């Protein structure tokens, strides 16, 4: 019987260490987030943040070096090994909603020291991040309307044509 003690103790420690950084950094995390808030062609929708925290558990999977466990990727640790969680952790805090506007491009070329020159815009980061992970995990929506429904303007935009055919933006079942 006493031989089990260190095992139980170890397991307890492990579970603590696994849950601690998450509990500490995700305390103020919102349960739901409205995405595509200003969407014109697709309706805004509610993102179940709580569910993703529950299933993924690792904040840094989506939030990179800004929160959660420190990055492990050998390419990133060169700079971010000791990066403490940042004040801004939201996607739009780093990924610009207008990555190709004259202002953003001017800002980029003015800042000569910038390393992340190929940082994706908000829309690209969201789509590639979400769909990429959903496909990898074999779980979660991957079709356009599985997340956001077409608005009236969107229907007019995509369904124009002499013959209406549903396809590319239809819902995919997973």
């Amino acid at each position, binding site marked *: 019987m006493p031989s089990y003690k260190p095992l139980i103790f170890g397991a307890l420690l492990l579970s603590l260490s696994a849950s601690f950084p998450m509990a500490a950094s995700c305390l103020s995390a919102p349960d739901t987030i409205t995405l595509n808030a200003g969407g014109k062609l697709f309706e805004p929708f509610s993102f179940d943040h709580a569910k993703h925290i529950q299933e993924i558990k690792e904040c840094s999977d989506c939030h990179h070096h800004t929160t959660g466990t420190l990055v492990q990727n050998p390419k990133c640790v060169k700079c971010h090994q000791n990066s403490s969680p940042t004040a801004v952790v939201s996607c739009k805090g780093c990924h610009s909603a207008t990555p190709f506007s004259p202002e953003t*491009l001017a800002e980029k070329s003015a800042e000569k020291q910038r390393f992340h020159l190929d940082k994706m815009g908000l*829309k690209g980061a969201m789509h590639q991040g979400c769909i990429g992970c959903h496909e990898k995990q074999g779980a979660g929506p991957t079709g356009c309307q599985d997340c956001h429904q077409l608005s009236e303007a969107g229907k007019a935009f995509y*369904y124009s*044509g002499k013959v209406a055919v549903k396809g590319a933006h239809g819902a995919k079942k997973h």
Partner: protein
Amino acid sequence: MKRRNFLKACIIGGATISLGKTNKGWAAGSFEGYPDAMGVLTDTTRCIGCRSCEAACNKEQKLPEPETSFEDKSVFEHERRPDSKAYTVVNAYDKKQPGEPVYRKIQCNHCNEPACLTSCFVNAYTKTKEGAVIYNSKVCVGCRNCMIACPFNVPGYSYESVTNPIVKKCILCYDTRLKVGKPPACVDICPQEALTFGRRSDLIKLAHERIREYPDRYYDNVYGEKELGGTSWLYLSRTSFDKIGFDTTLGNEPIISNVKEFLGMVPMVLSIWPALFSGIHLLSKGKHDEHGHDTESTQEDR
């Protein structure tokens, strides 16, 4: 003597003009594009074939409604090319491979030294400093030389208009967006950021950086960097470019290099030959006058 002096002046003047033009032509062969020219980098590894770019182009350029809606995925069964009703189309390639095919958006590549511009005898085409190859539909006479000259088979022809036949193609949204620094409509709508807008010189660096960072994801070449003297539209691919419908046999010499020697002769022919031959004609006619063999007509004229 007066006539002879005039002819001499014509020949000397013509020769200097044509020589000057030819020298300029040689210099043009090494033109690497305007320094601040913008461009678009298409990352074909990111494209999911949603055709949003086609829809956005249709609305932005006020093109006619398509045959079937932009939701129709059956269009991928056949390879399409841009035409007067669609300045951009997305095709599917590598369909025999398991998994998703490779999607590639096709539109005008906005060459640094456009063959369409070279071939146009009414000067309808302009390569703007922003990088777009635009055309003036008011001067276009509908000869379709540019359609034949374009190595990428891009310009479309509006056959439906008999009274005003003009060529139509992507203008990088020059009038409505590029002119004020905004990205083209297709770039703005792309959900995957498969299209990156920026200064062409920056995009080339960016593209090579992506290849360096993800060597397994990319084929080590940037299509459009050097092809035909370089294009404003650049491409990245997972496989070699010939597998996804690109013409990899075009070489790096711009089209104008193949025709510049001939074109250099054109001003000379146009400026000297008429004067030369009319001079010869007048001289021979004058001789006839002097010898009094051909006096009838001159008498009648008087």
